[in-house]
């Protein structure tokens, strides 16, 4: 049989190639361009090799924001995941309350990020905000604009408020897919509440939890808008996370070279951690 050779179909891929080129590849290459060269404007570039990378990796300022970032991401995952699972377990499985709960849960996810930041900013203001005023009148000295501890707590609580719902909804979907037979079998086998959670519910939620943790890791590692609106990275630099720091370097100081190098390092870190996490989870699955 003669096979007709016709490669014209490849042209059909062109639109998507163009799209990817313009929204991902070309911007990324621009960053690469800045990361290895020095420019003083006028489109004149001087080759710098790995100077910017070395500078960024050695800079105490970068280390400090990286540590803050890791602590923040670690904290919110440590709070949101157990809390999300807990809430999902207590949500009703059937009846009229199901849709009420689902809508209530979805609400925070629908609010634009800068609005979340603005809401919490006003909510937490020490003199006029409901939260700030209440805390102060209870005798707790609270002012997120000049106390690092208060600023941190507010940022973490805001993120928990905004994103726990995502974990709840994903876990709830996982829980809903468990047939009743499993629970009946567990009762018959005399399993305790904890054993049911450990051997039936948790394994069935594993896939969705993997996705949930990945999403929360990526989003929180790249968090910008909410803390920017809430604290602006302050007081001082205490809530300056990686992306806030990056914007300060790139747009505040116009250090395009170091900013580009930092962007690439940042990008590779997110990519690497996600890949490692996913690979480990999936390897467990296969065994």
């Amino acid at each position, binding site marked *: 049989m003669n096979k007709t050779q016709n490669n014209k179909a490849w042209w059909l891929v062109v639109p998507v190639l163009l799209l990817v080129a313009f929204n991902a590849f070309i911007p990324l290459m621009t960053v690469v361009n800045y990361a290895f060269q020095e420019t003083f404007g006028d489109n004149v570039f001087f080759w710098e090799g790995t100077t910017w990378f070395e500078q960024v990796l050695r800079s105490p300022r970068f280390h400090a924001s990286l540590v803050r970032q890791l602590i923040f991401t670690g904290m919110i995952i440590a709070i949101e995941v157990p809390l999300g699972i807990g809430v999902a377990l207590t949500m009703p499985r059937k009846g009229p309350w199901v849709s009420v709960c689902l809508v209530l849960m979805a609400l925070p996810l629908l609010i634009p990020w800068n609005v979340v930041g603005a809401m919490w900013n006003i909510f937490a203001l020490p003199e006029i905000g409901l939260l700030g005023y209440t805390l102060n009148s209870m005798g707790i000295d609270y002012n997120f604009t000049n106390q690092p501890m208060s600023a941190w707590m507010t940022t973490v609580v805001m993120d928990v408020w905004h994103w726990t719902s995502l974990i709840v909804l994903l876990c709830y979907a996982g829980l809903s897919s468990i*047939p009743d*037979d*499993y629970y*009946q*079998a567990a*009762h*018959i*086998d*005399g*399993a*305790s509440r904890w*054993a049911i959670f450990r*051997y*039936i519910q948790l*394994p*069935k939620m594993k896939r969705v939890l993997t996705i949930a943790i990945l999403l929360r890791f990526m989003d929180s590692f790249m968090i910008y808008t909410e803390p920017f609106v809430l604290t602006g990275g302050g007081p001082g630099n205490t809530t300056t996370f990686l992306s806030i720091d990056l914007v300060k370097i790139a747009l505040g100081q116009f250090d395009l070279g170091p900013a580009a190098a930092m962007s690439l390092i940042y990008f590779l870190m997110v990519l690497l951690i996600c890949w490692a996490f996913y690979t480990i989870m999936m390897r467990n699955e296969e*065994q």
Partner: protein
Amino acid sequence: MAQIRFRNVRHAYPPPKGKKPVYALNQINQVWEDGGAYALLGPSGCGKTTLLNIISGLLTPSEGEILFDGAEVTHLPTSERQIAQVFQFPVVYDTMTVFDNLAFPLRNRGMDEALVKQRVTQIAEMLDLSASLKKRAAGLTADGKQKISLGRGLVRSDVNAILFDEPLTVIDPHLKWQLRSKLKELHQQVGMTMIYVTHDQVEALTFADKVVVIYEGLVVQVGTPVELFNKPRHTFVGYFIGSPGMNVLPCTVENGQPVFYNSRLETSHPVTGELNGKLEVGIRPEFIEFATDGIPVTIEKVEDLGRYQVITLKHESEIIKMVMKEDKVIPAENPRVRFDPNRTRIYCDDWIVEETVHE
């Protein structure tokens, strides 16, 4: 192990608003002996799963009580009834190995680890699972998983009964036979009371010592497969068991003998006394033969099934099925058939006559 007794058990699911409750189970009075293999047989929706859930304690009956060895358990929760159940879809704990799965019910009850090991090894041996004890249960095939579900029941020595809810539904046909004979063999080995729910008559008849036929929430007959075949107490049993099912034909009664249209039939189980209600005569296709005198019929269809043939006959507007050995000959002209008088029975309002009518 226990004898199971039902006393006036009725159950209705909560009805939709403004409607009267419909009884899924209507008046069950039964005693099932310890160590028996019972099959609950009936069409979908007849209430057999409801009855099973009442035994296991997943449902509390609306009325009546259930006793294990004379002790009332109607309101006891599942975990205190010492019941094992195998579900339609295999339930295994995915993250555990086969060994841990089998050990799970024992460990939950705080059994000593050395004893657990001994028990599990013994049961795995019986179920031919010894080779895969160290494997993850999630990796097994459906029949392997179903064996694990069964094994989790067998490991417990305190089990009152093992319940099976259509356990072979998801098993490949060629493995069904194997697993079914395994069940039968296990029953003989361990002697536990086993209750098997199915809508497949072949499964019920091969597995059980006693078949409990359920129809519209009522137990219509309990008997050995032979009894069900030879003497169906209800026309439904006649239809449902046997392939093709029993012929149920309208009749009148004269002098205790049935009359089908204008043909007088003969039965060795004549009727005495007045009968009110719908009268029918029941005869299995196996007990009809061609004869020189008898009911004149026309032949509608002949199906050859290898060792025997199924012949569809018609008399007036009634269809009669008969089964005939391959080597016999179908008469060419004016075929007539004769019903075996020993096997011809009269039914009134679907229940067999000549015995005390069952409530």
